[in-house]
């Protein structure tokens, strides 16, 4: 196949994903929209009645909402890892999958950002989190990790969105020149007048490199900052120096699992098997396996550190995790995050999309549980026995959680039908590079 034919094939394949959505796609959109409505209704109930409709009460004042926040920020991480970090390392296998991961990042942060606001109880006061001149001369406290979070997550959202939109520019131009009607106008909007001249590419390539360079430290900083929300406190089970690397590895682990969860059905539904091959899935599975081992090491290390030395509140809290009221959730988490990924040592499993999908779904469940267990057991079983309290999520919290999944998938489903889910320009570049290597 000639280079021009390879280019044309890539473009045809991606363009075919931009057709009118089928019944299955519409049905999924309706389900996602219904979940959003259910979540929105539950949130409105919480706003009108108050936080007592949730299960939050002293001492467990952080629970499902903060679990969801940490979970979705974690999901958002792998997108930047794939698009920025692997771009800087010139990893060829990222080309076919990074756009899906980037979109997932943006929608993941959009979802995560809702939860601190939902958790506030009085969402109309959310703007108090930002420093702004006011008549009382009050300023936010920059020594608080919660303020670091506001800046870290906002920056992450803005930089990830820019990175996604800038990456789409040449692809939108390619689709614009091959489309008609409203789609042509849509692609023209996202193409920003792009013509593909050498002068545009000269500045674009440099700017893209800088976006990647800026986004790379964000991969490590944002979830480190999120982990400090816990580690900077003195609560047993939270106050630990291993939290930043533990959270970053967990974030990449859960994010990669979510990329697989999205990619396996997507490549089939959009007929992208030629572009997103089993080799790409294998590469993702290897990252999942590696990060699973790091996360498992962190679980073990947490216990080893707590069990060394004399009796302590830390030891009591960690033993409570493994043998207390939340033990079934803890052992489910271990099964999902530490045991199930071990199957990825087998090549056959890594090359079987259905098996990958099942394992990635288990990891999604396991990582949500991990955040829940860290947050809730620390608060439910702290230093003072008389304040121990068993927390159970209520219907409102469950509905808002389901709504957040609906919110995330709704935007993702809209995205894959309106904008290219695979980078056309980078795939074309890869064709030429592969020929040179061959």
């Amino acid at each position: 196949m000639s280079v021009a034919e390879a280019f044309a094939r890539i473009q045809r394949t991606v363009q075919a994903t931009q057709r009118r959505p089928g019944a299955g796609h519409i049905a999924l959109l309706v389900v996602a929209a219904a979940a959003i409505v259910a979540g929105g209704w539950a949130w409105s109930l919480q706003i009108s009645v108050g936080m007592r409709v949730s299960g939050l009460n002293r001492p467990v004042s952080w629970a499902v909402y903060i679990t969801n926040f940490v979970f979705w920020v974690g999901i958002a991480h792998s997108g930047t890892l794939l698009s920025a970090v692997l771009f800087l390392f010139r990893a060829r296998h990222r080309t076919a999958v990074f756009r899906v991961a980037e979109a997932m990042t943006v929608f993941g942060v959009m979802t995560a950002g809702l939860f601190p606001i939902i958790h506030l109880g009085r969402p109309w006061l959310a703007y108090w989190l930002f420093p702004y001149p006011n008549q009382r001369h009050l300023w936010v406290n920059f020594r608080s990790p919660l303020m670091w979070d506001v800046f870290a997550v906002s920056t992450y959202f803005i930089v990830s969105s820019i990175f996604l939109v800038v990456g789409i520019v040449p692809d939108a131009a390619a689709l614009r020149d091959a489309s008609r009607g409203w789609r042509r106008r849509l692609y023209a909007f996202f193409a920003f007048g792009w013509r593909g001249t050498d002068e545009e590419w000269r500045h674009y390539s440099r700017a893209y490199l800088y976006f990647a360079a800026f986004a790379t430290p964000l991969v490590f900083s944002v979830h480190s900052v999120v982990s400090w929300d816990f580690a900077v406190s003195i609560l047993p089970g939270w106050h630990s120096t291993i939290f930043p690397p533990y959270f970053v590895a967990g974030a990449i682990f859960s994010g990669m699992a979510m990329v697989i969860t999205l990619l396996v059905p997507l490549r089939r539904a959009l007929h992208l098997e030629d572009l997103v091959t089993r080799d790409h899935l294998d590469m993702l599975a290897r990252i999942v396996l590696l990060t699973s081992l790091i996360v498992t090491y962190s679980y073990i290390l947490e216990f080893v550190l707590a069990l060394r030395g004399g009796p302590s509140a830390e030891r009591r809290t960690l033993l409570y995790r493994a043998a207390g009221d939340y033990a079934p959730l803890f052992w489910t988490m271990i099964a999902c995050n530490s045991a199930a990924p071990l199957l990825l040592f087998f090549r056959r499993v890594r090359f079987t999309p259905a098996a990958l999908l099942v394992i990635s779904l288990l990891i999604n469940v396991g990582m949500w549980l991990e955040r829940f267990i860290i947050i809730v057991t620390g608060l439910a079983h702290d230093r003072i026995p008389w304040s121990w309290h068993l927390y159970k999520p209520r219907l409102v919290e469950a509905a808002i959680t389901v709504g957040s999944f609906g919110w995330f998938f709704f935007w993702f489903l809209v995205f894959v039908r309106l904008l290219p889910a695979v980078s056309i320009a980078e795939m074309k570049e890869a064709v030429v590079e592969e020929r040179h290597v061959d």
Partner: protein
Amino acid sequence: MSTEGVLAVFADPAPAARAVVALRAAGHSDVRAAMPAPFPELVRALDRPRSALDSITLSGALIGVGCGFALCIGTALAWPLVTGGKPIVSIPPFVIIAFELAVLIGALVNLATLAVLGGRGRRRREVPGDPRFSGDRIGVFVAAAGTGAEAAEALFREHGAEEVRRVG
């Protein structure tokens, strides 16, 4: 810059790069290209200087660092509330805000610079438009007239151009 010259269409970046090298060796200084991706050999053949974006973006990031520290120190001094026994101006936590603003302002400046330089470059080194150049073909344009244009046409054909035409 002039848009009078010769436009050639190539199906492969390799012969397009060779044609660019040959044109430059023949004394044509204004050689431009339009392509669906930044093919390294063609970019190298065009031998354009490095983008001025580097220093501007770096300045944006440094301004971000300054803004981050200024915001934290300024607000801490404006409302001096001791928390956790820490000093009012406590630098280690402020490094986080300074870092985040360095990334944020650096990225925004990078974006704005890209928009300005990319737009200006598109106008200054215009390549006659063809929708195929964002699809599966590469366009190479050389500003030339008269005998120079005839020589360029011959060179393009010699290097396997699919299509050669005069424009402007």
